[in-house]
């Protein structure tokens, strides 16, 4: 009787919750995870050189006059400065025509166990058909939980600025972490550049966020949402197609940005992907498949009722030039004497774009001498920095300084009274 009750209970659970389907789904996900993990481990010690053909298109501004008006309103707060009529004309002329730039670059990726690095030359702002390339060098150490970003314009905004090295503290896997995103290399890029497991993208696997949305004879389509909780600050939807004939290696990936959030907290995503990656040709390394040639399109635009209006599009065709497997040491080859801004004392998983939230006294600046100071040494350096750069006077001295603003007029009044 008890057995019968239990059987009826299990049957009811299966009927009402779709438990069988869930079991199938989780089984499939487990199979995929294992396959991708093996593949990830296979490529854990390798160096890859990619050739990239890049085309950048900045489309005309939708309402350049309104944009200019906004600029002028801001400008009116400084009555002594102005936007000249010539500058306005120049702005409107440029804003009304598209800008198209093309350039080539080489991307060198090295994986050595927990350490991953990427070296490249990336283009800055596209104007008048020309684009200035700036060197970038990223290095992540999963074991020690840090990320290093070296570059010029990526930090300072101007391609002519002095290169700097910024250092962050990250939780694993650092390159795929959503806070590791820079304007040139996105976490989803690493899946194709370095053959990381796509399931680990942005910590989605750990959060069991992946769900099966479609299974065909040739592929499995998975989807996952970053819902903005915990360390993930931005809302994002990922959709990936895993090729069955290529051992569940990702054959395409799409990343969607939110367009709005409804009153019942439902996120509505844009109908077009902000990033779209597609494998164009495959290559087999022993029993594992990897992309030989792939395309990545990044687009910024606005969702309209009648369609999509793009403002920026960047298209990359990336082809494998060379791959070498084997253990090798990834060197921290940053130029000696480079200015370093170390944000590790500011917290773990501070996003690259959010460095402004780190308190000034927790940002340690020093010159790169080839060695990364450990955290306890960094604490010492922060204390020394506070003593030398930001001299904190004795409270008594601070009180005297504060009272200077009252002291000067009081002195004058007292002297006048005496005279």
């Amino acid at each position, binding site marked *: 009787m008890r057995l019968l009750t239990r059987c009826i209970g299990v049957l009811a659970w299966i009927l009402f919750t779709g438990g069988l389907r869930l079991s199938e789904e989780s089984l499939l996900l487990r199979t995929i995870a294992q396959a991708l993990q093996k593949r990830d481990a296979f490529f854990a010690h390798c160096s890859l050189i990619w050739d990239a053909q890049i085309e950048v298109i900045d489309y005309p501004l939708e309402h350049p006059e309104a944009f200019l008006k906004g600029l*002028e309103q801001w*400008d*009116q*707060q400084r*009555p*002594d*400065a*102005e936007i*000249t*009529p*010539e*500058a306005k004309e120049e702005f409107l002329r440029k804003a009304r025509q598209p800008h198209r730039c093309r350039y080539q670059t080489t991307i060198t990726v090295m994986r050595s166990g927990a350490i991953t690095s990427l070296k490249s030359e990336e283009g800055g702002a596209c104007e008048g058909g020309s684009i200035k390339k700036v060197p970038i060098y990223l290095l992540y150490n999963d074991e020690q939980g840090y990320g290093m970003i070296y570059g010029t314009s990526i930090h300072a905004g101007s391609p002519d600025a002095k290169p700097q090295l910024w250092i962050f503290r990250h939780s694993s896997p650092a390159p795929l972490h959503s806070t590791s995103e820079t304007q040139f290399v996105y976490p989803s890029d690493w899946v194709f550049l370095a053959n990381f497991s796509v399931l680990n993208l942005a910590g989605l696997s750990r959060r069991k966020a992946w769900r099966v949305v479609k299974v065909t004879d040739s592929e499995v389509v998975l989807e996952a949402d970053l819902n903005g909780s915990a360390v993930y600050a931005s809302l994002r939807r990922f959709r990936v197609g895993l090729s069955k004939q290529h051992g569940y290696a990702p054959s395409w990936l799409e990343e969607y940005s939110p367009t709005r959030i409804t009153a019942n907290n439902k996120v509505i995503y844009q109908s077009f992907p902000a990033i779209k990656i597609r494998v164009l040709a495959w290559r087999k390394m022993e029993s594992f498949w990897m992309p030989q040639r792939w395309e990545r399109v990044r687009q910024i635009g606005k969702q309209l009722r009648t369609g999509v209006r793009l403002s920026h599009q960047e298209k990359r065709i990336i082809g494998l030039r060379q791959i070498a497997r084997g253990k090798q040491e990834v060197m921290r080859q940053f130029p000696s004497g480079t200015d370093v801004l170390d944000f590790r004392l500011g917290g773990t998983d501070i996003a690259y774009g959010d460095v402004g939230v780190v308190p000034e006294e927790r940002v340690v600046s020093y010159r790169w001498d080839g060695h990364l100071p450990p955290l306890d040494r960094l604490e010492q350096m922060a204390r020394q920095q506070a003593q030398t*750069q*930001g*001299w904190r*006077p004795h409270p008594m001295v601070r009180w005297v*300084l*504060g009272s*200077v*603003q*009252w002291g*000067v*007029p*009081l002195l*004058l*009044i007292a*002297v*006048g009274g005496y*005279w």
Partner: protein
Amino acid sequence: MAPSSLATMTVPFLMAGALGVLILRVCGRLEPTVREARLLAWGLTFLVVLTATIAVWGDLNPEFVMRSSLGTIHNALYRWIWIVAFLMTNLSVALVANARRFQGVVGGTVLVIALITTLLHAAGIRLIDDPLVYSFRGYYRPHGILWTPLEAGLVGLLGWAWGLAWSVQSGWRRIGGLYLVGLSTAVVYLTFSRSAWMGLGGALLVGLLLTRTHKALWLPLIITLATFLVASVALPLGWQRGVYAAQDDPSVQNRLQLWSQFPAQLIRYPFGVTEESADTIEQYMAAGSMVNFYLDIGVQYGVLPFVLQLWLVGILLKRVWAFILQGQMAGVWGLGVIASAICVIFMNPSGDSLATALWSGFWGMVSAMEVKPDAPARLHAD
């Protein structure tokens, strides 16, 4: 009327007190002993030099100054620096010869450096890397080591008056004075600061009165006009700058709009607008600058300091007018006061401690020059 706490009323009362002392001193009601004057003059000189040095250092290395206590010291002192510099030179010129010489040499040197760096800036050589650029139709308005072209124009007026005063003397001072007149006029033109142009124009007209008693003044005045004309022919864009004022120039419209709000602001905030007393952040921001030195005192410190500073400026201008009527040499220096008094109607140099120290120190110097009670009124022979 906005509610005001004791803390927000303290600064306006202190400002009124300091201005009151200044007025009494300029009127001759306060007569310190030489020993007392020396002590105070040197003490105030130290404060002015310290504040101006921090300001210049802040331009060259803003990060260091902001991070160190120098920034705190500057923030505590800068709002008083115009009163301190005024009293400093007033006491020195009247009573402390060695402080007067020191201030003359340091002030003159800084003034010449400010003028030369402005000329270099006009030639494309920037000594201070400031991302903010002041331009007019593609022309970059120079300002050298000073903050903006407006301050550069104001300091140009002071240099012009200094040059005039030397050019009516003899020997090397005459030659140097004539050069200084030309250099300063060129700087005033090149800054494209219409407030400085108006100041120069007003002072030129008044200066014509002085030529009746100081014939030697004709030459520097002609050099002024000639330099201005030659510069405007070489760089005719300046004429468009003048015409632009009548063509919906946003900077003119903004000034008019801000000034029209002044009476209402003064009634609403009789003790000045502070962050605490302002109804909205917009009102506090609007009180940041009326782009008029006199009105700014009213908006920032309230009715009493506003009235007192007008009183002080009134005394000073009245004295300068008396110098001119009596044909005194001090009248030539006074032309600098007239020019700068007109100029600051359209600007407020208080943010730039270096320009403020030079301008206010100049006013203090002229305020210490005495009207000769027995001097005949030479311009009115009858």
